[in-house]
């Protein structure tokens, strides 16, 4: 809301101090064209998400989720890393606090991602903005930022690209879950290692050079210590928070 005045100022500012300042002067429309453009641009990426969805479906069944639960989770949560971690924690009785708490913590990054879309989202109606945000995932967020920075003014791009992700993610979860029930002993196929492998590969994408090293070492030490002392999955939250605190205190000095 605070920024809406720049729109009426037209192109008076040079805008080279801030990338987003440049786009403030452009019109952002929310149209079917934008939805379509987002959807089409995102299809290749969504195919990859679909493959990932197959794996999620299989793992969800192995963890004891019903087909319905797995599909509803994919349709309403729509957050790959958090869902995989939740499935890794799944047990009976379900560790409710650990599952929901970890989901929250793993997804805290979305706060920053959603915040970064503010220059464009403020130009939409709240209903358009808050509907689009439901469909925000890592992959289409990156595509959306690219498209909006290019100045195409397609405010519905986030929604369109998110719908592509959603369709592939949900359908492939269902296929994977159906197939997963028939596979037999998953260890034969190394399925027990699949989650570890996915997490390792994701971790590589979170690597930000040497700055990441110390927080990660601290996280590892804290996690192993907490796991030895406390029951359940508290070590996950402890490790994450330890990395955060390390990062913050290091930069204070």
């Amino acid at each position, binding site marked *: 809301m605070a920024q809406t005045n720049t729109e009426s100022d037209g192109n008076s500012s040079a805008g080279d101090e801030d990338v987003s300042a440049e786009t403030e002067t452009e019109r952002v429309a929310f149209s079917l064209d934008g939805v379509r453009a987002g959807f089409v641009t995102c299809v290749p990426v969504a195919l*990859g998400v679909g493959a*990932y969805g197959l794996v999620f479906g299989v793992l969800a069944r192995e963890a004891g*989720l019903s087909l*319905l639960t797995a599909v*509803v*989770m994919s349709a*309403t*949560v729509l*957050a790959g*890393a*958090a869902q995989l*971690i939740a499935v*890794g924690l799944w047990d009976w*009785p*379900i560790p*409710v606090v650990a*599952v*929901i708490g970890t*989901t*929250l*913590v*793993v997804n*805290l*990054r*979305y706060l920053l991602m*959603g*915040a970064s*879309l503010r220059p464009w989202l403020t130009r939409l109606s709240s209903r358009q*903005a*808050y509907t689009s*945000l*439901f469909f*925000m995932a890592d992959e289409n967020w990156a595509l959306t930022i690219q498209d909006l920075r290019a100045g195409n003014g397609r405010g519905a791009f986030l929604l369109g690209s998110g719908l592509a992700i959603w369709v592939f993610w949900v359908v492939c979860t269902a296929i994977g879950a159906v197939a997963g029930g028939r596979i037999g002993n998953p260890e034969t196929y*190394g*399925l027990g290692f*699949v989650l*570890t*492998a996915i997490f*390792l*590969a994701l*971790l*590589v*994408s*979170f*690597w930000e050079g040497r700055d990441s090293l110390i*927080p*990660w070492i601290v*996280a*590892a030490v*804290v*996690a192993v210590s907490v796991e030895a002392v406390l029951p359940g999955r508290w*070590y*996950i939250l402890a*490790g*994450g*928070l330890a990395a*955060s*605190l*390390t990062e*913050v205190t290091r930069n204070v000095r």
Partner: protein
Amino acid sequence: MFDDVSLTALAVVFGMSTVTYVTKAGGFWALDRVEPSESVREALDALPGGILVAILIVRLLEGGPTEWMAGIAVLVVAHRTESVLLAMIVGVGTLIIVRGSGASIT
């Protein structure tokens, strides 16, 4: 019994989707009201990596040498190709081959 299990599970899923949506919409919502400090940004930035490290260290310590070798393969492929899926496939393939080659470490 089955219905009971299913309903509980669905309630947990509903909790997950609620907190997830709060994070997706919350950043935009809050930024319209307050500018986050640099430390808050840094803290949020460092969270996902720390969480993954915590999960992985415990899993890998339980896993043993076969998984460590496959893990190294995953890291190499992920680093080179930036493809999570390809890295996963190579990692699982490595695991199956190492196990199949009669290494009775486990």
